[in-house]
C-alpha cells in the first residue's frame, strides 16, 4: 500500500512563500531581541536594526512595483523622503506632550498617507508611459522631489506654523523650533523609532502585499504585466491596476521613510537620492522579482555586508561591487542555472515561487 506524505497546508502550494517570509521575520526578531537583552549584540548592529527594517519595507513595496506590476521604478527613495519629512514635521509639531508611541503611530500613518497621495499624483503621468521611458520619468520625479525638499523651510513657534520656499525667511519667536531647514534637513528630531515597530511594519506590509497579490486585483496586475493587450481584451483596466500597485508601493515606502526619519536626530534630504533608489532596486533584483522572501533576505544580507566587511576597511565597497557583478554573472550563467534547476527539482515540490517572472 502506497501512501503519499502529505505536507501541512501552510507549507505547500501558494502558502509556502508566505509562511517562510513570516517565519524569517518573527524568528529573526526573537533572536535579535534575546541577543539585545543579554547584551550580545554590538552597538553597531543595534544601530542597524531599524534601518534594515525600513529598507525591507521599502524594498517589499518596490518589489510589488517592479516584480509584480513589472514597471521599472528608479525613484522609490523619493517616496521614502516624502514619508520621512512628513513624519519628522508631524512628530516635531506634536511635541513631547503626546506620548511617543502615539506620536510614532500617527507620524507613520501620516507619512504613508502623504506618500500615497504623492504616489498617485506622480503615477498619473508615469503610468501613461512604458518601459525605459517610464523608468526615466520616475528618476526625474525622484530628482524633483529631492530638489523641492532641499529648498523647503518650515518652522513652528507660539504663533503657529511658518513656511518658506527657496529663500529662508522663516523668523521664529523665542522658543520656536525649526523643523525643516533646507539642505540641512531636519535636525533635533526625537528618536522615537523602535525595532519592534519596524518588525510590526514589516509584518503589516507583508500582509498587505500578499493579500493584494493573491486577490483578484493582484491577478489582474500580473496579467497586465505578462500581456498587456490580452489583459486589456478581457476587460482589465490597465491604468487602474497599475495605479493600485504603484500607490501601495509608494505607501509602503512612505511608512518606511517615516520610521527611518524618526530613527535619527538629523536627516538631510540628500540621503534619499538616486543612489538610495538604485540600492533598493538592487535588493529587489537580487532577491528575485516578485519574490518577497527573497527581497527580505537580500535586503538584510546587503545592508549588513558592508558592515561585515568592515575589517577589510577601504576595500569593502570594492568587494561589495565585485560581489554584485559576480552574483549577476553567476545567476545568469546557463550551466549554473541548469544545475540549480536540477537541485531544486530534487528537493522541492511543485508550486511555491510561481510569482516571479518567467525568464
Amino acid at each position, binding site marked *: 500500500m502506497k501512501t503519499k506524505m502529505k505536507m501541512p497546508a501552510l507549507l505547500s502550494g501558494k502558502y509556502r512563500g508566505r509562511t517562510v517570509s513570516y517565519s524569517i521575520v518573527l524568528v529573526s526578531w526573537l533572536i535579535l531581541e534575546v541577543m539585545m537583552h543579554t547584551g550580545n549584540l554590538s552597538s553597531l548592529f543595534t544601530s542597524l536594526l531599524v534601518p534594515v527594517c525600513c529598507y525591507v519595507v521599502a524594498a517589499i513595496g518596490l518589489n510589488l512595483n517592479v516584480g509584480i506590476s513589472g514597471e*521599472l521604478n528608479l525613484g522609490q527613495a523619493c517616496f521614502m523622503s516624502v514619508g520621512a519629512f512628513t513624519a519628522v514635521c508631524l512628530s516635531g509639531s506634536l511635541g513631547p506632550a503626546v506620548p511617543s508611541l502615539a506620536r510614532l503611530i500617527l507620524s507613520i500613518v501620516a507619512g504613508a498617507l502623504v506618500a500615497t497621495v504623492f504616489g498617485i499624483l506622480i503615477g498619473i*503621468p508615469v503610468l501613461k508611459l512604458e518601459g525605459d521611458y517610464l523608468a526615466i520619468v520616475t528618476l*526625474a520625479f525622484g530628482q524633483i522631489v529631492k530638489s523641492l525638499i532641499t529648498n523647503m523651510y518650515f518652522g513652528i513657534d507660539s504663533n503657529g506654523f511658518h513656511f518658506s520656499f*527657496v529663500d529662508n525667511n522663516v523668523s521664529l519667536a523665542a522658543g520656536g523650533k525649526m523643523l525643516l531647514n533646507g539642505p540641512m534637513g531636519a535636525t533635533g528630531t526625537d528618536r522615537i523609532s523602535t525595532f519592534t515597530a519596524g518588525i510590526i511594519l514589516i509584518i503589516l506590509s507583508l500582509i498587505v502585499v500578499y493579500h493584494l497579490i493573491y486577490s483578484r486585483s493582484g491577478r489582474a496586475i500580473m496579467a497586465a504585466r505578462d500581456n498587456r*493587450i490580452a489583459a486589456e481584451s478581457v476587460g482589465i483596466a490597465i491604468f487602474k491596476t497599475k495605479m493600485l500597485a504603484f500607490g501601495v508601493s509608494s505607501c509602503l515606502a512612505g511608512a518606511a521613510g517615516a520610521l527611518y526619519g524618526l530613527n535619527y536626530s538629523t536627516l538631510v534630504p540628500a540621503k534619499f537620492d538616486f543612489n538610495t533608489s538604485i540600492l533598493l532596486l538592487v535588493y529587489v533584483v537580487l532577491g528575485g522579482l516578485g519574490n518577497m522572501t527573497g527581497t527580505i533576505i537580500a535586503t538584510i544580507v546587503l545592508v549588513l555586508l558592508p558592515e561585515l566587511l568592515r575589517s577589510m576597511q*577601504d576595500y569593502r565597497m*570594492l568587494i561589495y*561591487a565585485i560581489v554584485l*557583478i559576480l552574483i549577476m554573472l553567476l545567476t*545568469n550563467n546557463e550551466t549554473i542555472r541548469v544545475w540549480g534547476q536540477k537541485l531544486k527539482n530534487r528537493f522541492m515540490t511543485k508550486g511555491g515561487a510561481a510569482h516571479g517572472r518567467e525568464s
Partner: protein
Amino acid sequence: MDFLSYLINGLGLGSVYAIIALGYTMVYGIAKMLNFAHGDVIMVGAYVAFFSISNLGLPLIPAVLLSIVVCTVLGVVIERLAYKPLRAASALSVLITAIGVSYFLQNAAQLLWSSSTKVFPSVISNGGISWNGLTVSWLTLITIGVCVLVMICLTLFINHTKTGRAMRACSEDKGASTLMGINVNLMISITFAIGSGLAAIASVLLCAAYPSVFPTLGAMPGIKAFTAAVFGGIGSIPGAFLGGLLLGVIEIFAKAYISTQLSDAIVFAVLILVLLIKPTGLLGKRIREKV
C-alpha cells in the same frame, strides 16, 4: 545681450551633455541596455587627463589622446567582462550589473587616487571673442566646435561606412545581421569603444569648465546626459545631439531667470512634460506593439 550670452553658455554646456549622451544612446540603440557605468568612464577619463597634464607634464592634445585610448580600452574591457556574458539575460540583470560596474569604478578610483578633490589645471586660455559687448570664452567656442565636429564625423561614419551600416543593421535585428555575416559581438564592442572615447573627450571639456576631479565626478553629468538622450529619443543619434543642447540651454536659462537652486528640478520637469506630449522623446521612433 544677456539673453544671447546665456544662450551661448547653454549651448556650451549642452555640447558636453550631447557628447556624453551619444555614448548612452549608441549603446542603447545596439545593445538595448542602459549603461549606468558610462558616467564613471567620464570620471576615469578626467583622472587620466589630470595625471597626464599635472604629473607627466604632457601638453593638452596628447593628454586628451591618452585619455581617449585609456577610456576606449576600459569601455571594451567592461563590455567583454561584465556585459557580454549577459546577452541573453533580462534587461534588469544587465542594469544591476552596470550599477555594480559603476560602484566598482567609483570605489577603485577612491582607493587609487583618494577621495580628495583635485584641481584640474587650466588648459584653455581665459580670454575670448568680444563682439558688440557680447563676450564668448574660447572654452565655450571650442566645446561647441568639438561637439559639432564629433556629430559630423559620427553621422558620416554611421551612414556612409561599411562598419556603420553593420552597426545600424545590428540595432535593427541582431539575428538577421548574424545571418548576413555581420560579427554582432564585434559591432557591440566598437559601439562601446566609440561611446567611451567620446566620454573621454567630454571629460576634458567638462573639467576645463568645472575644474575639480573627484571619484563621483561622473554621476551627475551622467544622469543629465542620460536624461538628454531620453529627451531626444533614446537610440537616436541626432536625438542625443538635440536633447543635449536643449538640456544645456534649459539648465542655464533656468539658473539665470528662475532660480539656481531649482534649476535641476526645472530641467527634469521639462523632460517629464516633453515625454507626456511625445512619449518616445523628440526624435524617437514610435513602435506600435502588435498582437
